[in-house]
Each structure stands twice: as structure tokens, then as C-alpha cells.
């Protein structure tokens, strides 16, 4: 009696497992929250239109955590929003696409432009009132919002805006880009930073006079001051990664279809060939 039950259970399990294992590959990744919306869109399109047998699992636990996952082998790839640091030994960085880090305020804030220096002073606690940023706008206390140290976005902001000085104690450090966007959306006095993909409902400021829009995002030559590459991080020199993953990376970097997906999801394609029709 019991043996029969066991046998049926085992058969059922086998039955469930069989269709999934027939030549399919599951690629496991983790890391950047900033790259997540674009990566998820790319994954979905790739599985649907290019290779139905390749599936992706991506955990957005922050770029720095993602690199650690690659180093200790728990992830096959990681997304990251900052350039390599000395602590990333044993990994290879591949440029995926570009992103702009927008400086955002609430829609009720009349401010339109901000300089890198002013942003630096706000996040270092030197400027604490909107009246010190511009005349005729808000006269209330600034609520600066940022990311906690888990995020690659935090490191990028630290390098690009704060000259590697730590943010002041009045900066509210949140655990995810979505929470930063949410905080700015709900607080008329807030300022925050988030990637292009998170801009709905926010008011991105011009930085040094350049608007935070996809056509101005460029790293070489630098147009919008807070343009950056988002990177794919692979273990070793990248050659040991599964062929399915390398194929996906080529597709993502070069194909016109991937380029369309990237711009739709809020990124800026860096190397993708333009679709032929538009020329």
C-alpha cells in the first residue's frame, strides 16, 4: 500500500520534472536594481522570440551584492551600475547598455535645473533649504533621499556627484530605487536620484542645463553629466560562462530587436545596430 503511494508520488514528480529538463537552460543572475526593469524586458523577449529553451532567474539584490554572488559562484552573471572596483577581482565587466541617473523632485516643485555642485552640497548637508538652490521657488527644508550602500547606484552617485565623500546624516538612505522614486513622489520637498526606467510620476531636473532624456544620454562623448554604462559581470575572464549566456549577451548588445526592447524599458542602447527600416 505504502509502496504504491510512494511509487505514484515519484512518478508524478518525474512527470513534472521531465518537460522542464528537455534541453532547457536556466540562467541565474542577481545584482543591480537599476538594470532590473530593462533586463527583465530583455529576458522576456529573448525567451519568447529568440530561444524558447533559455529561461532566466534574476534577483535584484543590489549591484555590489550581485558581484559577490558571481565571485562565490551563486550567480552565473550579475548586473551592475558602476565601473569595476579593486574588490571585484576575478570578474569581467561587459558594457550592456547606457542609463542616465536622473535627479528627481516632486511634481509640485517648480525647480527646473540644478548643478552638480548644488546637488553635492545638498547631499553633503551644506544646503538645507530650497531657497538656497533657486529664487522664487520653494522656501521649505530639503528632504534628500538616496540609496543605501548595497546599491551600485549609490557608488555611482558617490563617484560622480559626491567626490567619494559620504552623504550627510540627513540623507534618508532607502533599500531600493523603487522606494526612492516612491519617497520623492509623495513628498513635495524631496530630491532623489533614480535611473531613467523609474521616472514615471517624477520630475527629472536638468543637470547643468542638460535634460535627463534618452537622446542626451551618452558616455563617450559625455553629454548628460550623469550618464553611465550598465554592466554585465561574469566570473573569471568570461569564457567559462555557459554558451547560452554568451549568446544572449551578444544578442543583447548587438541586435536591433534588443535595442528596441532596451529603449522601451527605459534604457539607452549603446552598441545595438539601428533597425533597417528607420534609415
Amino acid at each position, binding site marked *: 500500500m505504502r509502496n504504491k503511494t510512494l511509487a505514484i508520488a515519484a512518478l508524478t514528480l518525474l512527470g513534472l520534472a521531465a518537460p522542464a529538463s528537455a534541453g532547457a537552460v536556466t540562467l541565474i543572475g542577481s545584482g543591480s536594481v537599476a538594470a532590473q526593469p530593462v533586463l527583465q524586458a530583455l529576458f522576456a523577449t529573448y525567451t519568447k522570440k529568440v530561444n524558447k529553451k533559455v529561461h532566466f532567474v534574476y534577483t535584484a539584490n543590489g549591484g555590489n*551584492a550581485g558581484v559577490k554572488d558571481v565571485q562565490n559562484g551563486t550567480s552565473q552573471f550579475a548586473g551592475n551600475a558602476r565601473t569595476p572596483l579593486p574588490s571585484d577581482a576575478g570578474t569581467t565587466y561587459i558594457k550592456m547598455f547606457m542609463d542616465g541617473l536622473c535627479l528627481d523632485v516632486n511634481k509640485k516643485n517648480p525647480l527646473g535645473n540644478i548643478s552638480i555642485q548644488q546637488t553635492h552640497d545638498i547631499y553633503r548637508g*551644506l544646503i*538645507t533649504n530650497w531657497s538656497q538652490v533657486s529664487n522664487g521657488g520653494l522656501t521649505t527644508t530639503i528632504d534628500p533621499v538616496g540609496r543605501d*550602500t*548595497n546599491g551600485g547606484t549609490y557608488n555611482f552617485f558617490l563617484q560622480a556627484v559626491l567626490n567619494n565623500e559620504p552623504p550627510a546624516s540627513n540623507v*534618508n538612505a532607502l*533599500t531600493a530605487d523603487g*522606494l526612492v522614486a516612491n519617497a520623492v513622489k509623495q*513628498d513635495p520637498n524631496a530630491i532623489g536620484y533614480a535611473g531613467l526606467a523609474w521616472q514615471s510620476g517624477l520630475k527629472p531636473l536638468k543637470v547643468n542645463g542638460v535634460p535627463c532624456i534618452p537622446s542626451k544620454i551618452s558616455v563617450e562623448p559625455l553629454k548628460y553629466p550623469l550618464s553611465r554604462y550598465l554592466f554585465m559581470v561574469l566570473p573569471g575572464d568570461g569564457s567559462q560562462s555557459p554558451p547560452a549566456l554568451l549568446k544572449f549577451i551578444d544578442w543583447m548588445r548587438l541586435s536591433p530587436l534588443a535595442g528596441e526592447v532596451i529603449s522601451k524599458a527605459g534604457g539607452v542602447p549603446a552598441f545595438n545596430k539601428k533597425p533597417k527600416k528607420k534609415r
Partner: protein
Amino acid sequence: MNEEFPPEYGPRWSDQRVERMLGALVCAIVGLLLAMIVTVLVRAWPSFSHNGLAWFGPGGSVDDQLNAIFLSGQSGAEYIYTFHAWPLIWSTLLITGGAVLIALFSALFVAVFIVEFAPEWMSNILQPVVRFLASVPSVIYGLIGVVVLVPFIGNHLVTEGQKDSVAGVISLTGYSLLAAIVVLTVMIAPLMVSIFSDGLRSVKPGWLEGSLALGVNRWRTTWKIGVRTARPAIVAGTVLATARAIGEAVMLAMISGSVGFAPNPADGLIFIFEPSRPLAPTIVKNIDQLSSPPANATLFAIASVLLFSATLFSLTGWLARRSMRKYGTA
């Protein structure tokens, strides 16, 4: 099964088997627990031995210290361990203490109402609702806090004058003691209510009827006989809720604020709007620093303090229950 073994041997043999299996399981669990405690303490030791009792004291900014610890050199001689956890401990005490105190009184009255005074149809509805609320994952409470409560406090309760008075030091944006205490209270109160009402329900009916028969009114009977008899259950529920509150990490990381700041009651009313960060969320927020050995030791030191306080709570709870057992049930 019974056909394979003679009936007189069958049950005995399976009894022995069950006894051994359960015994092995219990041993494994106890062993695992001991191994965990030892691991945490061993890993935490460098942090405690470098700071001594000053670990628990105030001094400097915790966040700067954590940053310095993380960035300190790559070899043993250059490691920095200096860490004064007082703002984190104070925040834990304030938030947990506040929430447990409010939850204790409100849960007691709710439990008394459900068990003694509510009409049957109402307690039939309330009972499952409370049990459901007690099992809602804390992230959901955190989400509601972030989307509803935090912006409400930041935009409607905090005044511009108050914000300006602390500008440059901390931001009063709604991520505050108040938000943390309110949401934590909502989170632990249902747990208390369900344990309290179980306790109240198991009071011997004869005792209550005796009191009523002597002409004592219902409220006084409930308060003097019911609640007093159920005290062991009340202590048990409070201890369980406190343990859950003190270890709560994810929800508090979302709404208590992110600075290692010690809110000062001497500042007046503004103090409940001040942000702070308790011990458990500090581990969550600094989890990516585990690769640096001194940061690793510091985070494990925080973990061991949490572990120690949890042990202390269950011990005091057990002692209190023992001394109250003479009153009867539970």
C-alpha cells in the same frame, strides 16, 4: 503492515522506532541551535574584545564607525573595530518598548471584549480575523507603512518649523519613531490578542460563576478573576510578541528611517518624528559588508546581542509564568 509482523510485536517495534526517530530529531535540533549560538558568538568575539563594555555605550556617529570598519585595511593589523552601538540599542528599546506597551493594553482590552462581552456572532467573526492578522508577513505591514503612514506623517504632522530646526542633521520626512511604533503595534497586537483570549477562555467557568453568584458585577469579575487567572497566558503572549518585535528587521528597515541617530525625549514632541535605526535593520542594511572581516565581526556582534536578549526574554517569561502558576490555568 500488520500482516508482516505478528500483532504482539508490531506495535512495540514501531513504538521503539518512533521513539528513536523523534529522539534523534530533537537531538539534531538542539545540536543545530547550539552550533548556531557558538558560531555567532565566535564570529562576534573580535568586536566585543576590542571595544569592551564601550560597545554598548554612546560615542560618535554609528554610521561613520560602520563605514570606517568596512573600509579598514585588508590585513589584521589595520582592522578597525571601534563601535559604539548605543543609538541602535536606544532605538530598539524605544520602538520595541513603545509598541509592546501600547499593544499590551489594547490587546488586553480587545481580548477581554472578544471573550467576555462580545455577542457570539461578533466573536465568531473577530476570532478568525485576529488569527489572520497575526500571521500576515511583516513586509506587507512595511509596505503599507511606506505608502500610507510615512507620507501622512511627513506631509501633515511634521511642521516646517520642526524640519528647519534640525535641518542638516536629520530629515523629518515621516520615517520616524512614530511610524515604526504604530506599525509595529499593529503587527504584534493580533498575536497578543489571540494568545490572551485563549488564556481567558481557559479560565475555569466555575470560578467566574462563583464570583457572579456572589453578586459581583461582570466587569469586576472579568478583571479580578478572569484576567488575574489568565496572567501566565498574558505573560507568555507579551514575551512572544516582544521577541517578534525585537527581531523585526525588514518592516523596520523600511519605515524607521536609516540613520543611526538616537532620538532624544528631551527635545519635546519633535522626538517622535525623529528617524532612527534599530539593531536588526542595521544587519539588513549592511549585509553586503560581510566580506570585510571586521564588519563581519561587528554585524555578528549585533546578532549576538539580539540572540542574547531573545534568550533573556524567554527566561524571564518562564520565571514569571512559574511564579504565577498558583493562580490556576495555563
